[in-house]
């Protein structure tokens, strides 16, 4: 672990201390809110850890490169989209899993697509329809999926530019 890794949480903790002196009530509510978020994130984190364990045990760099690498084609897009759609819980619970996938050889396009497709939530569709009607909900979900793919293409392009290898496809 990098020595500077704890700098970020320490800065936030200092912010808490300063705010606690200024507005103890509201800072107390912030502590409660953070504790609530920690409770919410626990199960998705456990799930992410189990997936990382399985990934490290069964998925080889060869698999990750073949199914989620730059040359994985439409199958790779479908796989990363499906994984993003079914993933649950806060996004940051999935960062360690994505880092692990990248170490194995998954491309930046697919990692970005995974993150973007989290906006598409079929399980929440009935609720969305109840609030906004079926037409809006359907258009919203379809356009969200396209936004994810387009943003992932941009990220794939940036990554390609970063490696200096312009001949590679973005996904």
């Amino acid at each position, binding site marked *: 672990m990098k020595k500077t890794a704890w700098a970020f949480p320490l800065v*936030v903790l200092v912010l808490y201390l300063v705010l606690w002196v200024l507005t103890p009530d509201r800072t107390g509510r912030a502590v409660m809110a953070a504790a609530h978020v920690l409770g919410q994130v626990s199960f998705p984190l456990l799930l992410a850890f189990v997936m990382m*364990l399985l990934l490290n*045990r069964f998925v080889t760099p060869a698999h990750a490169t073949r199914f989620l690498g730059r040359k994985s084609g439409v199958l790779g897009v479908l796989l990363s989209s499906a994984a993003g759609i079914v993933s649950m819980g806060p996004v*940051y619970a999935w960062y*360690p899993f994505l880092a692990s996938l990248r170490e194995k050889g998954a491309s930046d396009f697919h990692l970005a697509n995974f993150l973007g497709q989290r906006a598409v939530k079929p399980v929440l569709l009935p609720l969305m329809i109840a609030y906004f009607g079926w037409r809006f909900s359907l258009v919203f979900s379809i356009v969200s999926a396209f936004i994810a793919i387009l943003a992932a293409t941009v990220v794939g392009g940036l990554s390609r530019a970063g490696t200096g290898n312009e001949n590679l496809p973005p996904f």
Partner: protein
Amino acid sequence: MKIAMPVDAPNLDAQVENRLGTASYLLVVDTETLDFEAVQGPSGTSGPGSGIQVVSMAVGMGAEAVLCGYIAPYIAQTLEKSGIRIIRAVRGRARDAVEEFQRGDFDRTEEAEAQHGEESPVHPALWRGAFQRAARQFVGMLPVLIGVILLVGLFQAFFPRQALTAVFSKDPFWDTLWGACAGILLTGNPVNSYVIGQTLLDMGVGLCGVTALMLSWVGVGLVQLPAEIGVLGARFAVGRNVATFLLILLAVPLIVGLSGGTW
């Protein structure tokens, strides 16, 4: 990912050499792009400790696996503890070794060795290794994760959702922009964005602002940006968030227009 090999020439057609400490060159190859870097090795003239020196060089160049003929057990053990994969008994051309690595041939060999060595059908050695790697990756993420959770708490307490209504003006362009900006600051389950969106609609805010808020709620996140940068890099995280934000601004009129809603 990058793999390192001791070789006899600075190119992919070089032969993989037996030991790191006596290698003519160290080749670090990106398995996906086949881009490589070659640095002069210690060669046969170097003394004890040169193997460790080469290994440090390989790790410094970003290698996550070392392919070689032989490696001293104490060096291998140290490297494996740090999550660097060691593959021994590699012979032949560097290019062929990379291809075998990509095909997973070495994985099958390792698995077969593990199965041969372990009588148990669950292969404890492979599970232990996988657990150690997962734990290392997970623990490495913890500080940023804790920071983000604390930051989310602050935002929830100091950024009241009622304040949202004040920024909307019923102008589709500005509502889209402010809605997208508000979504960047707020985090949580998408259900919350539906509830807030419906409340805003009931309060007379246009569908453009609500749609932008709901899209950026999940798609873009300022609070979790440090974590995303920490794990996936600034180019990835900033690029993804900026691209998604701009695409949201373009997509909102499309969604509102196609769904037949009022702007």
